[in-house]
C-alpha cells in the first residue's frame, strides 16, 4: 500500500482533528513548563492547513507537504510553526517527483523532517524537545521500511516509537526552548512538543492503517 496526495489530505484532516481534540491537553502541558499556547497554536495551524489543502489543487504528495509547511510557518506563531513548518518542507523535498509515497519513501521523508527540525531548533536528543519523539520515530520507521513494511507499517512503527520517546522526556531537564529557562524545575513534566509530535504521527498512522 502506498499514499497518494488524496490519502495525504485525508490524513491531514485526521491530524487536525486529533490536534483539536487534544488542544487542552497540549496547552496544559505547555502551561506548566512553557507559555501555554501550544494547543491553540497547533489547532489554528492545522485548521489553516485543512482549509489550504482543500482549496488548492494539489495533486502530488510533495505539493501537499509543501503547502502544509508554508501554512504552518505563516499561521502558528510560536516555535512549533517554524519547526513543524521546516519538518514538512523538508519532507516535501524528500518525496519530489513521486506520485505515491511507499514505505521507504515515508521513512525517508521522516528522516528529512528530523534533519530540518534539528537544523532549525539546534536541539539534540535529550534536550526535552520534539526531537526526543521524532528521532526514535525515524529510527523505527527506517527499520520498518527495511523490513519491507508499507506506508501504514512504517507510520505505525514511527508512532509507537514517538509515543515512547515523548514519555522519555518527562524526567529530563530542558536544554532548549522556553522550558529551558526553568532549569531543573522543568524535570517531571512531559514536553508538549514531543507530545504533539507523537500525536501527529499517531494520527497519520491511524489514517494510513484505516485504509
Amino acid at each position, binding site marked *: 500500500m502506498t499514499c497518494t496526495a488524496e490519502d495525504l489530505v485525508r490524513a491531514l484532516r485526521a491530524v487536525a482533528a486529533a490536534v483539536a481534540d487534544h488542544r487542552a491537553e497540549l496547552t496544559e502541558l505547555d502551561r506548566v513548563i512553557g507559555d501555554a499556547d501550544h494547543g491553540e497554536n497547533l489547532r489554528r495551524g492545522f485548521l489553516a492547513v485543512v482549509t489550504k489543502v482543500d482549496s488548492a489543487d494539489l495533486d502530488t504528495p510533495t505539493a501537499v507537504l509543501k503547502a502544509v509547511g508554508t501554512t504552518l510557518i505563516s499561521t*502558528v506563531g510560536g516555535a512549533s510553526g517554524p519547526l513543524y*513548518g521546516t519538518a514538512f518542507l523538508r519532507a516535501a523535498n524528500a518525496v519530489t517527483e513521486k506520485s505515491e509515497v511507499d514505505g521507504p519513501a515515508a521513512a525517508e521523508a521522516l528522516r528529512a523532517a528530523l534533519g530540518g527540525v534539528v537544523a532549525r531548533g539546534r536541539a539534540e536528543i535529550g534536550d526535552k524537545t520534539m526531537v526526543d519523539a521524532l528521532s526514535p520515530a525515524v529510527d523505527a520507521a527506517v527499520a520498518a521500511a527495511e523490513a519491507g513494511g508499507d506506508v501504514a507499517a512504517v507510520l505505525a512503527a514511527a508512532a509507537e516509537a514517538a509515543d515512547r520517546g515523548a514519555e522519555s522526556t518527562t524526567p529530563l531537564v530542558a536544554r532548549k526552548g522556553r522550558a529551558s529557562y526553568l532549569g531543573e524545575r522543568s524535570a517531571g513534566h512531559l514536553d508538549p512538543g514531543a507530545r504533539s509530535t507523537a500525536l501527529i504521527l499517531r494520527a497519520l498512522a491511524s489514517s494510513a492503517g484505516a485504509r
Partner: protein
Amino acid sequence: MTVGLVLVSHSAKLAEGLAELAAQMAPDVPVLPVGGAPDGGLGTDYDAVGAAVDRADRGDGVVLLYDLGSARMTAELVVEGLNDPRRAHVVEAPFVEGAVAAAVAAQGGADLDGVVAAAATAAGEAGGVAGGVAGGPEAEFAAGAAAVTTAPTTEAGTPEAGGDERGPGLSAEVVLRNEVGLHARPAALLARSVADLDAEVVVEYAGAAVDARSVLALMGLNARGGDTVTVRAWGRQADQALRRVQELAERRFDE
C-alpha cells in the same frame, strides 16, 4: 542609503519600544518593529517579518535582531526564503544592545557586514558595562569583554597593548562640559562624528580605552559631566577626528 533594521519580537509593544529607542540614535536608518503572532497574541508572524524586511531594504541590505528562540527561527526562515538571502542577516545578539549598536553603525554609514559586526559585538560591551555577572560562564564572559574594552582594538579586531607599534597617536584632553557626560545621546553623537573618518579613534577614561565608534562602549566608560577624557587617534584623518570631538564637547553635545 543605509542598512535597514528589522526587530522581531514576540510582543508588538517590545518591538515598537525598542525601535523607538534605536531610532532616537539613528534618525536616518529604517528601523522596523515586528511583534506578535498572526492572531495578534504573543508570538511571531512570518509574513509580517517578510514584509518588514522588504520595507527596510533600501538597497544596502537588512539586519534582523530577535528576542527569543522562535523569533530567531522565524527570522531565519524569512531570510532563507528571500530571492537573494545575502541581502539580509539574522544576528545573534542581545536584543536591546544589539539593536542600538546596529542602528548607530548603520547611521554612521557602515555596510551590511559592519552593522552585523556592531550588533554581534554588542554582547561583549554590555558585559563590560555591567562590570561582570556573578557565577558561571557569564562571569567569565563579562570579564573577558571588560579586558577587551581596556585594550583598544584595530579595525581587524586584534587587541593591542598600549605603547604598541602604532605609536602614541595624536591625543587631546576633552572636558565633558555637558550635564550628563557620555550618556546615550552624547555618546551616539560622538560615535557618529568620527564614523566616516579614515582614523582609528579611542576614548580613554579611568584606565579604560574604548572604540569611539561604539556607543555602548562609550556609555560603558561611565564618564560624567565635568569629567575629562582623553581622545586618541591614529590614521590619515586623526587630527580631524580630534577636532570634531573637541567641537562637539565645546558645543556641550548640543544640550
